[in-house]
């Protein structure tokens, strides 16, 4: 999907950039770098841990798994299937899948996500990698698919799937390779560039082939002279035709220059408009580590199975950069590199400015984990107690997004979401510069994160509420329509009943007449004779009607005399039902909403009348439990109808009558269901009793 670029970089701007001009951004800070601790030693292999935990969930979505518990897997084997947005997750060493379950993720929340656990066999056997020297013969689609299958996501931190970023290839004018690494302590990219300069340049040429930008800028902070030299050497080795439009831009060390938006401003002088993607300016940015992974995926055919992690901080005896298999438990690294916990030990994933702390080591290294800092208390003392904001404005001076953190704090504390929005909280990149300089030691970023989370959940809730409102209104409209339909039918029924009353002796009450009509309508074959009915109404009579109904359910044609005070309606219904049974064992009730509604009502009746039944029931049924229940339902239904819905049209009563039979037959057909329903009824009975006891 390519969007129409609104404001592409012009030729003049590109010329300006390549002429060596660069810009700056607002604010920023100069924290202690502490990079030399880890930048000197060469990258070592962290080895194969006894087991790997590979999180497969991506942004909360579980992909289709391609392995099962017990399967043996090879290094590089795909564990999941790619979708449009999701990349493939590959096994990072050979072994056996021992579990597919939720395991703690490398996430500030420490919540579990679906993971594949592999017990490694130590052999590190891999699938066969197919080298591809001539990638230029392949189409972009093929190459991007390869990158997706290699499981490559942005290795700089945010972990945005790389294939999605590459899909914008049509409009890209400027490709920026982000090798800034502005966070203190982290040297993973620095070491990578020093040791794999050639591969990185190869990776850049792959991207050059896919994106065809007019200019490629490799941005490196000036505190990495060795890396700059290595990249320069590697670039000079390339043919001039390929490296002609690749330039290396050394930028001043200035946190957070490695943030995408700030780096774009440094390189181009342009600010990415709010709500727009840099690709709309014709700019795309890739992390240098990602470029290296792309090279391995395209040219060597190797999927992303490991990454370089900086282990640093004074609590690590052996500091440096190691190549770690994705899914390696951090505890394994802590043990192997002689981590010695000190008082109030923290463990920080990522850098000290934007990283997050984890509370235990039983979490796996993920693709975005570029650094583990284990600082001593001397290195990173605990934050002093928070003091009130004095609005000194230092935070606004350093904010790279030009926000007013002091005002945002005020509104975040008062939970004034509309004000937070007005002050553009959403533009906060959580770089931590404000909290870094705050003399009152206010954890501003933390407050903003919470406020952002609250705003987004409020937004979600508002959206959900809107959907709920629409659904509610649709439902109300539907019910209204159904009611109107019923009224129309009722009217028709009433008219026909009038006719019938003229034909017969007349004097019946409305419902009895309706039932009679219903009977006439439903039973094409049955004779339209009407049983006499008493007008005396009484609850006891209803019970007897129920008993009668039960008998009818058992397919008896007996017409119980309505000797006690009897509800005429009940009797009529019972009769109608009996006649109906005689006519057609399996009546086909229309399967519409109305029917559902009636069926439900019957079921309710069944449940609620169960108790009453027990005393009055006559055991004449073949299937006592069911028929009793059905009779109870029916009786209850009738009562309900009498009390509440005098105007219920005949058709519905018809259906009602038809219903128990259907239930019967279904029950008979399916023993399974029968027992289930029996169980449910028992339960309902219990509920009813309990209610009565109360």
């Amino acid at each position, binding site marked *: 999907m390519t969007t129409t670029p609104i404001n592409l970089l012009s030729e003049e701007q590109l010329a300006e950039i390549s002429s060596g001009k660069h810009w700056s951004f607002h604010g920023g800070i100069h924290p202690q770098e502490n990079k030399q601790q880890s930048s000197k030693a060469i990258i070592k292999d962290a080895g194969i841990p006894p087991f790997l935990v590979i999180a497969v969930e991506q942004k909360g979505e579980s992909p289709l798994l391609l392995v099962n518990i017990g399967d043996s897997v090879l290094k590089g084997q795909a564990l999941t299937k790619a979708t449009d947005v999701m990349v493939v997750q590959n096994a990072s060493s050979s072994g056996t899948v021992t579990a597919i379950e939720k395991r703690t993720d490398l996430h500030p929340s420490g919540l579990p996500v679906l993971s594949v656990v592999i017990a490694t066999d130590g052999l590190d056997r891999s699938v066969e990698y197919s080298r591809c020297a001539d990638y230029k013969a392949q189409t972009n689609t093929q190459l991007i698919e390869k990158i997706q299958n290699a499981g490559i996501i942005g290795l700089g931190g945010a972990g945005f799937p790389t294939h999605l970023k590459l899909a914008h290839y049509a409009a890209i004018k400027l490709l920026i390779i982000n090798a800034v690494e502005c966070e203190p302590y982290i040297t993973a990219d620095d070491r990578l560039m020093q040791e794999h300069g050639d591969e990185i340049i190869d990776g850049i040429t792959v991207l050059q082939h896919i994106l065809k930008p007019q200019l490629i800028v490799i941005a490196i902070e000036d505190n990495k002279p060795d890396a700059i030299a290595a990249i320069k050497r590697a670039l000079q080795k390339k043919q001039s035709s390929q490296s002609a439009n690749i330039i290396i831009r050394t930028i001043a060390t200035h946190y957070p220059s490695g943030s995408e938006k700030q780096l774009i401003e440094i390189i181009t002088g342009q600010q990415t408009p709010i709500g727009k993607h840099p690709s709309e300016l014709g700019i795309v940015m890739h992390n240098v580590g990602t470029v290296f992974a792309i090279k391995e995926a395209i040219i060597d055919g190797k999927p992303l199975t490991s990454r370089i992690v900086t282990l640093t901080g004074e609590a690590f005896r052996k500091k440096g950069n190691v190549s770690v298999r994705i899914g390696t438990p951090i505890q394994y690294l802590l043990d192997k590199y002689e981590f010695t916990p000190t008082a109030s030990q923290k463990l920080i994933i990522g850098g000290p400015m934007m990283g997050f702390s984890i509370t235990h080591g039983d979490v796996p290294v993920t693709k975005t984990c570029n650094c583990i800092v284990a600082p001593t208390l001397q290195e990173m003392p*605990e934050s002093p107690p928070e003091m009130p904001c*004095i609005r000194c*404005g230092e935070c*606004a001076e350093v904010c790279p*997004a030009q926000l*007013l953190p002091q005002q945002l704090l005020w509104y975040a504390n008062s939970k004034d979401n509309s004000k937070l929005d007005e002050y553009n909280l959403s533009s906060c990149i959580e770089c931590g510069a404000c909290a*870094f300089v705050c003399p*009152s030691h206010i954890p501003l*970023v933390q407050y903003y994160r919470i406020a952002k989370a609250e705003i987004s959940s409020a937004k979600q809730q508002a959206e959900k509420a809107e959907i709920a409102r629409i659904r509610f209104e649709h439902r109300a409209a539907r019910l209204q329509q159904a009611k109107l339909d019923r009224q129309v039918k009722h009217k028709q029924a009433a008219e026909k009943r009038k006719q019938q009353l003229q034909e017969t002796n007349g004097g019946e009450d409305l419902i009895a007449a309706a039932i009679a009509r219903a009977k006439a309508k439903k039973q094409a074959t049955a004779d339209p004779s009407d049983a006499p009915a008493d007008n005396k109404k009484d609850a006891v009579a209803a019970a007897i009607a129920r008993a009668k109904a039960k008998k009818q359910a058992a397919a008896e044609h007996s017409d119980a005399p309505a000797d006690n005070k009897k509800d005429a309606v009940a009797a009529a219904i019972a009769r109608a039902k009996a006649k109906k049974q005689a006519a057609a064992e399996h009546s086909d009730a229309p399967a519409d909403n109305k029917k559902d509604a009636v069926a439900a009502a019957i079921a309710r009746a069944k449940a609620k009348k169960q108790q009453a039944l027990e005393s009055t029931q006559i055991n004449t049924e073949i299937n006592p439990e069911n028929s009793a229940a059905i009779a109870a339902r029916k009786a209850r239904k009738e009562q309900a109808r009498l009390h509440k819905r005098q105007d219920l049209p005949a058709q519905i009563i018809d259906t009602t009558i038809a219903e128990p039979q259907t239930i019967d037959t279904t029950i008979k057909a399916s023993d399974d269901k029968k027992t289930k329903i029996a169980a449910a009824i028992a339960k309902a009975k219990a509920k009813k009793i309990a209610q009565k006891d109360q």
Partner: protein
Amino acid sequence: MAFISSSSPYQRVRRSTSEIMLLVLLCLIPGIFLQSYFFGLGNLLQILLASTVALLSETLILILRKRPILSTIKDGSALLTGVLIAIAIPPLAPWWIAVIGTVFAVIFVKQLYGGLGQNIFNPAMAAYVLLLISFPVQMTTWIPVQSLHPFSLTVMDQINALFTGFTLDGYSVAQISTSIDGLTMATPLDTARNALNSGKTISEIFNSPEYKASSWQAIEWVNLGFLIGGLILLYKRVILWYIPIAFLAGISIFSFIAFAYNPDLNISPLFHLFSGATMLGAFFILTDPVTASTTVKGRIFYGVLAALIVVVIRNIGGYPDALAFAVLLANMCVPFIDYYTQPKVYGRGR
């Protein structure tokens, strides 16, 4: 094992609010030193008195409000308020002037609004205005420069004068503040104001015996002292340049306009800059971050607004100096200024 969980960032600049307040206090020293050099040790006594009262009243109100005491006292804001009040009042004002002012500033203007960071008015200036309006005589009884004293005042004299109103020799403060030639002592701004009201021109005033008798040179030196302290604050980045520069530039420009319009009736920009509380206000009072505007543009506007009010009141209004009024009026406008001077956020276009 379990590790400590906490929020990023994990690195911080080690400067704290208390240190900022301490630096501000330290930078007041040159001005205070010059004040006591010219006017005797009265101001030091007032500082001692006012800071003690400030800390006591802060403690009291924190107990009543059930807030942590030690950590709040440590922020140094009450101390600074006390010191600023002490500097602003006449050195030999009666002891209850400083006490009333400080108690009002700390308890009513600051703590009852919710404590540090919540008050909308500058506590020291609100207290000053209260005192000026309630006790105009005591608040305008300035003693002459020591060299002009008809009597020599010892420390004990001054302490006595402060607490009883009389020196050990039995002279009243009013008597002390009468200089050798029998003229009542006043600040240069006061003198200029009175003379203008009686129909004199500026050049006449500057040549008049009243003016020469006033402590204008001493006041200029004191202003210079505060300017030096302020520049150190700027250098140390304790305060940002926006407000002081905007305020001083505003004073210069507005007073120049008035001066150019009628040099006979309006005092010169230079006189404005180095008289009254101009420098103290520019660097130590207007820059109080809690009550000042918080945006860059807003701060410049705030400084200019205060300057305008100061010049207008000094030139036209009924009071000789106007800094306290200007600060309070500007404080009132802060929410409005802040709202309309929000910076353009990244990506909102330039």
